[in-house]
């Protein structure tokens, strides 16, 4: 028996598939399947959001206290913070009284974030940031922002948003980005989900908000002030939020759309502005 040392072919145990082409086919294939799945679920959610009975929504989300990032910049005593909340709540109650079909009580929560922002959450929570309270210059301006959120409740956009962000979060978690538990609340995923509402939803909410504000004050003066204040605030952050991330129609376009809607309905857009409630008055932005 003879020993003949020979090197066997050493490439048979490794496929010739290049890792990058394997990556491309896997990512595209799984991405496509996931996309199809998400699209179907998305459509289902759109319908479900429209038909979910209000009492079921209240039961499901009534206790929801959305956790939002950003520590409070408010150094004042607790009583004062409560007074501010009560003041905003009173304003919200006045506005939503013009929406008689309102299915449940809306509740204000103030969160300590610098960005001027407000959001509607399932179950009736309206989130208002410190930054918003600091920026508004009149009650009318704040009212319009609150009424805009009420508009989201009326159109049930908040349910759709929750569904979308959860979906996108889950889809991302499925391919290994992030984890499913954090998906629903994670900010970047909300951003990816088209930041919640799409433009058509924003415009609808704007129109409804103007109706509420006009019903409350008799005119729409000050309503668009929030949008006028925005570019400055964005510039102040040092980050120019470009159109592609921001689903809110660009400020000027929204102002124009509002004015057109006011003309169509014959709403007066001039009038005297109501000052901010006492508890909020010192919150005005320093010049």
């Amino acid at each position, binding site marked *: *028996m*003879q020993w*003949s*040392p*020979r090197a066997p*072919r050493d490439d*048979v*145990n490794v496929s010739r598939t290049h890792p990058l082409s394997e990556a491309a086919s896997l990512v595209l294939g799984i991405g496509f399947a996931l996309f199809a799945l998400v699209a179907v679920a998305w459509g289902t959610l759109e319908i479900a959001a429209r038909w979910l009975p209000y009492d079921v929504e209240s039961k499901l989300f009534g206790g929801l206290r959305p956790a939002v990032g950003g520590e409070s910049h408010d150094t004042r005593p607790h009583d004062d913070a409560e007074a501010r909340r009560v003041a905003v709540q009173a304003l919200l109650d006045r506005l939503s009284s013009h929406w008689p079909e309102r299915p449940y009580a809306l509740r204000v929560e103030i969160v300590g974030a610098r960005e001027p922002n407000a959001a509607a959450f399932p179950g009736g929570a309206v989130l208002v940031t410190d930054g918003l309270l600091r920026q508004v210059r009149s009650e009318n301006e704040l009212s319009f922002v609150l009424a805009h959120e009420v508009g989201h409740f009326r159109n049930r956009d908040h349910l759709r948003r929750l569904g979308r962000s959860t979906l996108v979060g889950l889809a991302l978690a499925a391919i290994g980005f992030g984890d499913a538990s954090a998906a629903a609340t994670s900010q970047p995923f909300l951003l990816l989900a088209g930041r919640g509402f799409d433009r058509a939803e924003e415009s609808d909410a704007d129109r409804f908000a103007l109706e509420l504000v006009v019903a409350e004050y008799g005119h729409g003066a000050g309503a668009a002030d929030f949008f006028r204040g925005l570019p400055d605030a964005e510039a102040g952050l040092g980050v120019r939020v470009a159109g592609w991330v921001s689903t809110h129609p660009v400020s000027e376009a929204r102002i124009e759309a509002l004015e057109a809607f006011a003309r169509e309905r014959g709403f007066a857009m001039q009038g005297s502005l109501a000052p901010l409630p006492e508890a909020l008055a010192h919150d005005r932005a320093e010049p």
Partner: protein
Amino acid sequence: MILTNTENVPGRKIVEFFGVVTGSTVRAKHIGKDILAGLKNIVGGELKGYTELLQEARTEATERMVAQAKSVGANAVVNVRFATSSIAAGAAELFAYGTAVRVE
């Protein structure tokens, strides 16, 4: 190509040997089959999907080993062994190795 799991090929004489040849492949379980297997696990019995999957993978590992044996000019692989090792959750390696020889 003659494959045996004995030391030699019965009835024939080994005249030359070339060393160890190996063949391996890695397979991941199919998600659908996994769910079916999970259900089957409750009642017990053969997991047909897995039998096929592993058999197909073992055939490939053997073919790869044979390709190595051919490349050194062998006409038989003796003392063939199969091994299965789990290298990550959900993936299994099927591995075959033996000594490449030339028989009369």
